[in-house]
């Protein structure tokens, strides 16, 4: 039983990482109806930046952490302004292809600049365990969960209590009306991309100590984030977080207790989750079903 709880906690920790990346996807999808296929590669790239700051510029961990978040935010806004804005009105196919182009660019740049070799990445938390009622829980797992919870609360407060947050919600809901009352919708979308990049950077830096730093490190995690977002409902921020945690715990338990799945089949299981949810309940568990007028 103790082992079971240990698996649940470590599942929650990986689930928290999926949740952060899923939240980034949901943020962009709500605002613009786009799925950003480059979200994972952006996260990987910012994690490399954090590593470069720590290794070659001797920044302490948390300084590097927050500097990276700032860089990620500016980079995300810039990306939206330069690459995404010109194709806002274009077909879905165009937008998908452009974000795939971004996947190639970030992935290629990372191996171009930092070579493709696998590097270690430090964790902010000590590699200890604490004993809770006979269950050994890793401090790293608790720290990961804590950082993501803190981030989600901050984001929620930002959207709920600040004027910019309100303007962003308004432009996602009804861009034309928002424009009429003086909201600069274009910049709100830019800030949305910036925040998504920040969420991705956090996910990357939390994941890197276990998956190690390499250009393809976020590919699997991106699929888990897709599955989380789809499971929770791709337009529901709450759903993304809940979906991420559920998927993290679920995959960890299935991977450990179902021999057939093991560690190899986690990705295909996530794929199965995506397909089943999309086919059976496309709005996800917490999303509102969309009805379309024809």
């Amino acid at each position, binding site marked *: 039983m103790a082992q079971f709880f240990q698996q649940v906690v470590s599942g929650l920790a990986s689930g928290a990482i999926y949740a952060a990346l899923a939240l980034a996807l949901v943020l962009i999808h709500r605002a613009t*109806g*786009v*799925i950003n*296929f480059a979200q994972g590669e952006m996260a990987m790239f910012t994690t490399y*930046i954090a*590593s*470069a*700051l720590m*290794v*070659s*510029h001797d920044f302490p961990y948390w300084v590097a952490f927050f500097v990276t978040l700032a860089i990620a935010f500016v980079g995300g806004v810039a990306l939206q302004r330069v*690459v995404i804005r*010109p*194709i806002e009105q*274009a077909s*879905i*196919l*165009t937008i*998908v*292809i*452009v974000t*795939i*182009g*971004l*996947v*190639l*660019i*970030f*992935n*290629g*740049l*990372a*191996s*171009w*600049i*930092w*070579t*493709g070799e696998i590097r270690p990445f430090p964790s902010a938390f000590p590699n200890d365990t604490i004993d809770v009622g006979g269950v050994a829980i890793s401090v790293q797992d608790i720290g990961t969960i804590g950082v993501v919870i803190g981030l989600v609360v901050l984001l929620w407060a930002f959207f709920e209590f600040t004027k910019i947050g309100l303007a962003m919600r308004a432009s996602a809901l009804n861009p034309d009306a928002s424009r009429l009352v003086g909201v600069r919708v274009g910049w709100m979308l830019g800030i949305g991309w910036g925040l998504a990049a920040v969420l991705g950077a956090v996910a990357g830096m939390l994941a890197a100590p276990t998956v190690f730093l390499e*250009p393809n490190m976020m*590919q*699997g995690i*991106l*699929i888990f984030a*897709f*599955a989380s977002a*789809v499971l929770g409902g791709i337009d529901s921020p709450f759903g993304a977080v809940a979906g991420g945690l559920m998927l993290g715990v679920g995959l960890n338990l299935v991977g450990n207790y179902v021999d057939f799945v*093991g560690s*190899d*089949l*986690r*990705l*295909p299981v*996530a*794929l199965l989750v*995506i*397909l089943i949810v*999309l*086919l059976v309940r*496309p709005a996800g568990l917490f999303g509102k079903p969309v009805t379309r007028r*024809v």
Partner: protein
Amino acid sequence: MSRVQLRPAALVKPLLFVLAALAVLFLPRFISDFRAQQFAYVAIFLIALIGLNVLTGFTGQISLGHGAFMAIGAYTTAILISNSEPALKLGSHVFEGQMQDYWTIPIAGIVAGVIGFLFGFPALRLSGLYLALATFAVAIATPALIRRFDTLTGGGAGINFFDSPRFTGLPKTDPVTFEEIPGGVDLRLFTIPTFNEWLYYLTWTVALVLFVVAWALLRGRTGRALRSVRDSELAAASSGVNLARYKTLAFGISAFYAGVAGSLYAIANTNVYPDAFGITLSIFLLVGVVVGGLGSLWPLVIGAVFIQFLPLWAQSLNGPLPDSLLLVDVPNFRAPGAPAVVYGVILILVMLAFPGGAAGLVRRLGALSRRLSQRAS
């Protein structure tokens, strides 16, 4: 200008095709053995690109996972040819590699086509973005799936059928020692002396046949129906186009082409392994279709040449980046990521500036020259 009723324009395309076929036939007389191999890959990519374009360019169904269908074709061929020890098993059936190489090509196409057709049914319920998402996930999960079923697929090491007795009677270059292994095929008209030339003629024969098939299929009723599904599902359905039938058909045809391409890809490589069929392959196919032109056929040749030769060119870009970008000191700097960056930039630039790809560019230039000549006259 006189108005001619008999349209010579109708003859231009078949004539061009014959010329192209002749060029393909005699090209190996003028290029090295190594180049012949590279052009064989162009034919393989061309087949895959035609398949992907039937689905994405003509029918508007985005697939980011076409590498998975190529994997199905490639593994079908590899499993049927291979005589590896221990033998590959599916359930209680043991594959002993009794099949001659070229017989496996249509089988690979059919296996992939049937699976693609079946995948078309759930895909009916996924529109636009969600289909892209699901196929992207398929592409990333493919290598893991292949690895998991290792009794059939050889696991992470893959299947090497280089030595199989039923695999081409032609001289091959040993991949380790680079020594030529003697052999040869007499086709009466002329002999094909090397494996690479054999590969060249095999791939281009299949490519030209499948090109004509696609052309015939897409110019008539079926092609119109597929394009109407792409342009407006609503309008198509109200005009009596059966959406479900044509979408699943497009998936089936598209996967058939990808399966054949995968089969030839396996033959060209003389082996298969899981990581060859990851997301990168799927994305490269998308790049090829976009560069050639979504919804076009002829210009896909340009797309195929592009994805075969651009990485070779981009690898020569291995000078160091400016120091300011290098946050970490790297000894012996090389540029493994350069092709991907170039691809990505071109992909975005094409979508921003020339959404029609090479096909659109040619059309635009044609319109421009017509306007200029009209102004002159």
